[in-house]
């Protein structure tokens, strides 16, 4: 496990589960929870988030010695905003239909606390390569939770996955309207957070992995 021992590799793995941004730190659920009722939208949004998180961490880390301390936050926000504009332009060009429904939420990646949090906590103190991995790890850990939520919400709410109907849908499927509505997302996130936290607490109690 040589990869795991390097600073960057460790940060990447840590962010996936032990320090998972969603249920361990409760960061940045705002901008993306809204798009979890369809898996396709979620995947697109997560892709954009991973891209922004990784590259903005990289950029901030490369510039960390040149950015004056007092205007640090402002510069970080501007760097993140620049990458979000790239993501937004890409989605607008490639998936115009989806852009109509998730448009404003793409812009909200800027204020996603995960990206800002990783920039401030990790990228502004570490070299480029580990920062890139740390950003990608945070994005992946976040996406993992959202994809789980989206899977359940789309299957129960629409009876489809990625827009394709589930097998033998007429036989067993019954629409859970609540999963289409906003409260469904809150309940699902609470359940996932409960499961994740309970598992980690149990393992800590048993003196297992730290």
């Amino acid at each position: 496990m040589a990869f795991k021992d390097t600073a960057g590799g460790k940060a990447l793995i840590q962010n996936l589960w032990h320090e998972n941004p969603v249920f361990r730190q409760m960061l940045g659920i705002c901008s993306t929870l809204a798009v979890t009722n369809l898996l396709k939208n979620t995947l697109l949004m997560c892709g954009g988030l991973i891209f922004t998180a990784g590259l903005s961490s990289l950029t901030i880390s490369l510039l960390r010695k040149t950015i004056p301390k007092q205007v640090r936050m402002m510069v970080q926000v501007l760097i993140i905003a620049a990458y979000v504009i790239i993501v937004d332009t890409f989605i607008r060009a490639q998936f115009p239909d989806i852009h109509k429904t998730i448009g404003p939420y793409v812009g909200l990646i800027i204020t996603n606390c995960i990206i800002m949090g990783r920039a401030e906590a990790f990228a502004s103190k570490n070299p480029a390569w580990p920062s890139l991995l740390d950003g990608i790890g945070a994005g992946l850990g976040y996406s993992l939770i959202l994809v789980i939520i989206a899977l359940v919400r789309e299957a129960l709410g629409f009876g489809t996955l990625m827009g394709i109907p589930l097998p033998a849908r007429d036989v067993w499927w019954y629409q859970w309207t609540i999963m289409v509505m906003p409260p469904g997302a809150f309940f699902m996130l609470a359940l996932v957070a409960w499961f994740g936290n309970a598992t980690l607490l149990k393992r800590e109690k048993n003196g297992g992995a730290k």
Partner: protein
Amino acid sequence: MILAAIQPVVQSEPNVLAQLLVIFLAAAFTENILLARFLGMCSFLAISRQMKTSIGLGFAVVFVTTFTAAINWLLHTYVMVPLGIVFLEYIIFIVVIAAFVQLVEMIIERFSPSLYFSLGIFLPLITVNCAILGVSLFMLNKQSFGLPESLIFGFGSGIGWLIAIVLMAGIREQIKEDKIPPGLRGAGITLIITGIIALAFVAFSGMIK
């Protein structure tokens, strides 16, 4: 200045007033920025532990959303569209928000130090509250909005956020002593309660057609 902008509209068409009321109610209840659009969750989860701070932050958000929505609408209509730089809207909006928050902070510090101390910590936090940027972005989604509509939309959204966080703080103060499964403590139980409140707010959707 704001009154002057609304006044002629109100006088010319009495219906406009009703329309503005609908925009306000929709923004505050049926399309609640937090409960239906999931914006401003981070500070919501972190701050809603105490009633007093929740109210303080809530009013600060109302104030900032109202004015940044108006400023951003003006910038978008009179600067970005004529110059063809709409793609820069994210950068411009976030700079406006950060600058406005900074300005408000300075003004409050100068004129009312006591209010500054009670709000002090929350004002800078607002810059990264996604609800603020969200209001500006959703406002542009509704292309028929003029300045009064944007102002009311910003105000209504802020009020919606205030209502949500105050409700949550009230409930959280009540359940502080209750036995909750360890894995669910903190954010987990807050999210479930938020879901129940959101469910209650769904009932408002019949109010506006």
